[in-house]
Every structure is written in structure tokens, then in C-alpha cells.
């Protein structure tokens, strides 16, 4: 059938809301996509100790895997330390990434409250939110990350020819 005008090859089918909801796990910087739930720094401390510390260290600094805490003010130096605290522009990315990819060996196993709380603890460890802060779908997108203004568009080609 000549259906080229509408670009319609008659392939595929309409996705249901249930199907979309099951896979639609990304979180935008606006907070769009954040689920109901909440988490505190105190709760996050426990989640981190149980489920994250063996790879990222007791305080999020020691590793052996990616360092998650510190590095503030190092980006211009000879030894830049890029962490979620010193480098990441959006707090929402933390929710998105931890929910989709962590813990590394059991990804997508945390409840929304566990993700909110471990995010709260990591932001607190990085001195970005106070110890009594509560993270939820409203407060998390409002968190101002220190390096929010640190990113620029791609200017390449940038190297002058000889």
C-alpha cells in the first residue's frame, strides 16, 4: 500500500500506558519522572553502609570504586577530583543514575525511599544540603549543585592550524 505520505508503513503497535510506565525511568532536571516517596540523611546513612560502602568506602571517599564525596574547588587545579559533589550539575541525575544502575551487582533493586535517602546522605556528605533535609519529588530538583554553571557547549574545532 502506498502509505508514504503519512510515513506510515503499518508496522508496530500503540504502546499502552502500563507498558510506558514500566520502562519510563528517567528523571529530568525539572524533576519530571520522580516518584512519590521521601528519604532522610539518617536513613540514607544506613542504606549506604549496607548497600554501597563496600564498593565506595565508608564515607564515600575511600573506594575502591568511584569516589562519591569531596573534590570541591579542585576542578581548576593540577589534580582535579570529579565527584557528584564537585562536578555534577544536577541533583536529579543522582536519583536517575542510582535507581537505574546501582548497586552495581543488583541494579534497579532499591525502593524509591531508599534512593531518596541515599541521595540525601550523599548530598549531605558533600555539604550541599543540611543534615535535617528531606529529599522528595519537590525538594530534590530544587537542590543547587555547586558546579551547576560549570558546563559549556562544544566549541570545536578549537585547535588553531599551524
Amino acid at each position: 500500500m502506498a502509505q508514504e505520505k503519512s510515513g506510515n508503513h503499518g508496522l508496530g503497535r500503540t504502546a499502552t500506558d502500563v507498558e510506558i510506565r514500566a520502562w519510563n525511568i528517567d528523571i529530568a532536571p525539572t524533576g519530571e519522572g520522580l516518584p512519590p516517596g521521601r528519604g532522610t540523611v539518617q536513613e540514607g546513612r544506613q542504606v549506604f553502609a549496607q548497600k554501597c560502602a563496600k564498593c565506595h568506602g565508608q564515607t564515600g571517599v575511600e573506594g575502591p570504586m568511584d569516589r562519591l564525596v569531596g573534590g570541591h574547588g579542585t576542578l581548576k587545579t593540577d589534580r582535579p577530583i570529579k565527584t557528584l559533589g564537585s562536578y555534577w550539575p544536577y541533583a536529579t541525575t543522582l536519583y536517575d543514575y542510582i535507581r537505574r544502575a546501582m548497586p552495581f551487582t543488583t541494579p534497579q533493586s532499591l525502593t524509591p525511599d531508599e534512593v531518596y535517602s541515599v541521595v540525601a546522605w550523599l548530598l549531605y556528605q558533600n555539604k550541599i544540603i543540611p543534615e535535617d533535609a528531606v529529599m522528595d519529588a519537590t525538594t530534590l530538583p530544587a537542590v543547587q549543585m555547586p558546579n551547576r554553571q560549570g558546563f559549556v557547549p562544544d566549541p570545536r574545532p578549537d585547535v588553531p592550524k599551524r
Partner: protein
Amino acid sequence: MSQKPTLSRRTFLTAASLAGLAAAQAMLQPLQAQTPDAPTVPEDPTKVPGAPPSAYGQRSSFEQAQRLAGSSSSLTPLQDLHGIVTPASLHFERHHNGVPLIDPARHRLLIHGLVERPMIFTMDELKRFPAVSRLAFIECSGNSAGEWHEPGGQTAQQTQGLISSSEWTGVLLAIVLREVGMKPDATWMLAEGADAAAMTRSIPLAPALEEALLCYAQNGEALRPEQGYPLRLLIPGWEGNVCIKWLRRLKLGAAPFMTREETSHYTDLMPNGTARQFTLVMEAKSVITSPSGGQQIRPGFVEIRGLAWSGRGRVTQVEVSTDGGETWRKAQLQKPVLAKCHTRFRFPWRWNGQEAILQSRCADETGYVQPSRQALVAVRGLHSIYHNNAIQSWKVSRDGAVHNVHV
């Protein structure tokens, strides 16, 4: 080392017999002749019938080129390859939480967000769309990341091995997006994989629509699992990480989604502390693959061979220097020269046994010329990790050994 050639097994058995295991060897050898994967090499292959046909071919057991695998990536042995196509078995790998095992009959692609009709496609349906094939390179933007400070790798595989070229077949992204209907305010697309990293990148829609492919085949057969089986996104010329493997979801939006892989990673930190974001294009680059680090040459005729490529289009010229960049001469380009694909170059040389520094420098159809390391570092400093496309230098010492150096 799964492909131990027959000869080394025989060598091993000989050594074992020397150690006083002659009886054991006598028992092993007739058995070995019957094992299909360890045939005895005949003195004269014209005097004995050869092997029968097979269902799925293997390379000669004498060939040993292999990827160099780390925990989450493996490198293509560029120094061992010919022409421009990378065998699928040797295509570099980079994955962020392993290679998933996916049944294509159960795999689905969901397209939603700023579309007229959110839709789901099966693999069979995607294969029924009009198909296209094209050759293209995929390069990880972390290729040569270990070469910024000092010479890091010994071989071309170690210094530049995160690049490969293949013939890719699939359906144009633009055709499938027409099927769902893009809303006018859709400017970005989130692409997500079905791996344990649920790898996710935001892609600016307008430039991607020109050439992006939803691929299901590589070099004539189904994609390899390491390359995204059963479905991967290919955006020719852009960094490998956006060519999402095991693709299961596309979501159109009005702004970038700011995933971890476009904020924490795959951003380029500059000396002033700012970082470049969405540095997607892979700029022109070349490397001499032979003679290259770890190899040994002899005086006399040596054909210098290498690969050049540009994410902005065709390679128009490759120049070779044998004196560390003092003088440059044009190399010959093997046709066809294809946009956003490996281009093979060759340069005839006579080595006189003196120290030499071999370099290649390419230019592309936009007029861009591959920079020296100094010129690149002068602009970007030493901490940007990604997009190191500097000229590679190989030093030939008097004994014919070739080493990675910075000049």
C-alpha cells in the same frame, strides 16, 4: 588465549616428552589426531584430503590476532588488520555493566515522549522497514585517553584500539520516527539500552535525524552481543557511547535529560575548570598501524600502513613523516574513501637503519587538520580525558624496534 594454535600444543607435548613423559605423549598423539579442533598438520597438503565444509567458519588455527580485554572494554588489534573493515570478532568493546543476554523474539523498542503515537516495535517489524547499509567507524571518545600525559600504551592496539569500522545494516531512525510522528517541540531524544547499566544518552534530534540508523546487522550477519544484539543505535561520526547498544527505548523531549553519562562522564574538563558538554563529533585522526609500537623492522623496503578517519566526513589527505614532523609527504589512499569510515593509507619507505620517528597526519573535507599533541594540549590541558586525536609518534631505534614516544 582460547585459540591456541595446533603448533604450540605440539611444541608443548614435545617439551613434555623431553621431561620424561614419552609414554604419555605416545598415548596422547593418536588421540589428538582424532580431535577435530586439533588436526595434525600434514607435511604436504596436496597429498591428503582436506577438511570437510562446516556450518559456521573459523579462522585458521595459525591466526592469533585478538582483542586485549580489560574489565569493561577490549581493544581492537589494529596492527594485525588489513583494509578498512574490522572483523566482528575483533570489534572493540566498551560496556558499563556487562554484555546482556537478550532473546530477540522478546526484545522490544518503545518510542514515546513528544510523539503523536507512542509505539512498540518488535525486531521482526523493525527488519520489515526499508533497510539501508553503510560502512562507518565507531570510536570511543576515550580512545587514546591514556596518551595525554606521557606515552601510555606500547602498541597501536593499546594506544588507539578503541576504534573499529563495520558495515552496518538497519532502518533509518528518521523513517521509524515518522511512523510514530514527532511533535514539533521535540528537539532531544533519550536513547536507553537493555543492559544492567540501562545505558542512557541524550541526543540532539536534528543532526541525528540525518544519518542515524537503528542497526540489527554488522558485516552481513546479526549484530554481535558485544555490539548490542539485537538492536543498536548508530550515529555515524559521533562518539561510540551515544550509539546505544541493546536499544530498547527512545523518548523524545524538549531538552537534554542530563544523564550521568553526559554530566559526570563524557564531558571534557578544561584548564579553566569549565567542562565541555555534548562533545559528540569525533574529529579527524590517524595512526600508523605498521610499523607500530612493539614491532620490529629490518633495513630495506618497508611499506608504512595506517588508518585515518573523520567524524565530519571524508578524509581528503594523509601525510606521513619519517623524521618526527620535519618533513611531510603525501600517502596513498586506498579507494573507496568513505565518509565517517576508516580510510586505509600507505606510504612506501626505505629504512636505512638510522633512528626514525614515524608520524601520520590527516585532513578531512571540512579542511580540518589533525593536530600535534602540543597544539591540542595547549588548548585543552591534560585533564579532558576524552577526544585525544593528536598525531601519534612511533620511534624506530637502530635495532629496528618500534616504540611509542612523545616528541
